[in-house]
């Protein structure tokens, strides 16, 4: 065997090593102005931030290499969140605390990394998400009464858009109202909805409410607080 074959930087060898590197999960919050930024734009923003921060992210191979990056539960436009999860693969071991600091310096101020850890569970395990939904309104008592009435119906049928067209769906079993608080600008409901493969966004419920009950809501503010797995534990 000639020693030409011996090359420590052989890409195939390198790739095999990197393939053995575990996926890293970055938890971040997206609040304030960033809620108006679409998921696609957040993806690009993350790529550039990782680059600015000098994080050794693994690029997919092939004709058009790009950063390998997946998001556990993409957030709808207009939502804020305290628990977004982004999975990456790195090409070398890094100190997570330092990576967090570096990344936070590089990110726009409305996106903040809270925690970095090894990926424990697959995104497919996601089953529920917890939201705080604030209906901004003046006539709080009346809106609350109407809303309570609305959600206590036996079934709540929404027309869901699918790839094949539209189909009716009863979201009553998919939404669990946990708390109701009167706050300065309106009423805040804490609710848990089905998430993951089958995804029920809280605005499905609130938009239908506004439409059907013809109430005057100035804005619906939504904050995702937590993501849960099918076994009821917090997704990590």
């Amino acid at each position, binding site marked *: 065997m000639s020693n030409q074959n011996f090359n420590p930087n052989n890409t195939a060898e390198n790739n095999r090593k990197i393939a053995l590197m575990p996926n890293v999960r970055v938890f971040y919050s997206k609040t*304030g*102005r*960033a809620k*108006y*930024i*679409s998921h696609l*734009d*957040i993806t*690009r*923003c993350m*790529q*550039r*931030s*990782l*680059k*600015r921060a000098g994080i050794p992210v693994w*690029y997919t191979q092939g004709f058009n*290499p790009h950063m390998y990056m997946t998001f556990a539960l993409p957030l709808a*436009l*207009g939502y804020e969140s305290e628990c977004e999860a982004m999975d990456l693969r790195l090409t070398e071991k890094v100190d997570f605390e330092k990576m967090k600091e570096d990344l936070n310096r*590089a*990110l*726009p*101020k*409305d996106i903040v990394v809270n925690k970095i850890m090894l990926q424990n569970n697959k995104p497919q395990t996601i089953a529920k998400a917890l939201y705080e939904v604030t209906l*901004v309104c003046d006539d709080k008592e009346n809106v609350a009464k109407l809303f309570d009435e609305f959600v206590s119906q036996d079934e709540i049928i929404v027309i869901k858009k699918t790839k094949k067209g539209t189909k009716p769906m009863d979201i009553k079993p998919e939404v669990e109202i946990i708390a109701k608080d009167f706050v300065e*600008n309106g009423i805040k409901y804490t609710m848990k909805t089905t998430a993951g493969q089958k995804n029920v966004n809280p605005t499905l419920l609130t938009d239908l409410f506004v439409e059907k009950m013809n109430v005057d809501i*100035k*804005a619906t*503010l939504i904050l995702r607080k937590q993501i849960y797995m099918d076994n009821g534990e917090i997704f990590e």
Partner: protein
Amino acid sequence: MNIKKQLDEFLLEVQKPGRYVGGEVNSIYKNANEVDVRFAFCFPDTYEVGMSHLGMKILYGLLNSKDYCWCERVFAPWMDMEQKMRENNIKLYGLESFDELCDFDIIGFTLQYELSYTNILNMLDLSGIDVFAKNREGLKNLVIAGGPCTCNPEPLVDFVDVFMLGEGEENLIEFVELYRKAKQENWSKEKLLEEASHIQGVYVPSLYDVSYNEDGTVKEIKALKSAPQTVKKAIIQDMSKTYYPKDFVVPYIDTVHDRAIVEVMRGCIRGCRFCQAGFIYRPLREKNPDVLCSQGKSLCETTGYEEISLSSLSTSDYSGIADLLDELIDYSVENKVNLSLPSLRIDNFSEDLLEKVKKVRKTGLTFAPEAGTQRMRDVINKNITKEDIFSSCKIAFEGGYTSVKLYFMLGLPTETMEDCEGIIDLAQEIVGLYNHLENRVKGKSVNVTVSVSTFVPKPFTPFQWFGQDDLETIIKKQYHMKDYITSKKISFKYHASKTSVLEAVFARGDRRLSQVMYKAWKKGCYFDSWDEHFYFDKWLEALEECGLTVEFYANRHREIGEVFPWSHLDYGVSEAFLRREWEKALNSTTTPNCREQCSGCGANKLLERKGGKCVE
């Protein structure tokens, strides 16, 4: 009233809400109470267009580098957003602070193209600020404007207090400092304006009195008070030493050009006679390649951009191009950054250079021969021959390219139908060249895109005397060319020329057009550069109501010796030189470029360099 909370009520109902919230990486936040001057940098077009613009990035960084000044960005909201804002009584605001525009000291617009002028009126109106300069009292909300179109800003004089001619990196700071002093010492607006008129490049239109001849042409332009009789443009002496930003604001949303840019030089040695930029940015000033490399790297590091481009009027004329490309290509490969090179001229597009460029560039090839026949190219002084074009195409095809884009202009001085046919002939010959090439990509056919725009005569060019082809003639030429195409491999693209007509009216217009602009805007004209929002009929109505015509401004051939509306503005190039070039054009005689031989345009006098030589 907190605008942010109000925005929550409807931002999700407008297209691309990311345009209206700021918060991007590298945007700058200061405490409004700790600065002396609040500057609103307004781009009179959408966020996506404005955020792609290099000049704005430079001046945003520059102004914010001063502790006493906070510069914020403002763009024209798209119509859906404007409607929501008007419904909810929300005023136009700065993207950084969300404070209303009327809270700002200086409101600065950049004039990049004539068809954005009406957006200025609309943006002022949307801010609750009176559009007429004479109605705005005091120092607050002083409206200023800079950019290439200020070389004839006359159509805007009713609305703008101060125009900044030329390059702003130095005199804008001088102006802002004067403003700061005026504010501290409680000057009147009149005093500030008069003092400002003594700064090089500062043009205060209200200090000039314009009278007209009976035929509507300008009779005389008289300076009032202590304003100078002619206003000379501001110019940067040493490009390597002048301010350049270390970072750019990185937009969240997709913009037209979203990448790091290094400006390799200002000015151009070529002197293509149709090209205003080629004259108003004279003389050529290059940046040192080392400075460029470090500026480029710094930008990539601070933005995380995946693309870097070299910007100038003619990058392949940059004398340090080989050194620069060598280093930047290595850097970009190593750091997974794409290098893109726009506006490469083809006459010095060597095989070597192409080889290097090919390593990093995957997109198609574009050439701008501008005219189809050699005679016509001589008239416009575009020193490219058919052989140059063919040899560049041949190298490119052999290197694997299968599509070529060619840019041309229609309606050039002395143009005949044969010249128009020449454009198509050239494209057909390129198709032929590809088909007969042995080492082209097998099994793939070629695509030649011919893109034709309508020529607009501009001030400070040798064609400033030329009357634009009327609409009918242009349309006739376009149709003829379309019929003349035989090959299916050619895609022919041309543009509705009504917008070019209006552009021609404003480009060489006078002060009387302010009224026309006001009337047209009142009729609903703005975002004129967006085809779907361009109402030519309303513009014609507005002109008619003011007793003015398209013919007078756009199509009329001007006499040598006529006083132009911009005759009191000095961009370095002398009228005598432009006249010589005009005469040479009519004789199809070319002029050598500034490196081959100086043609004595006069721009050298703008430089402090010893001996007044332009090209080292």
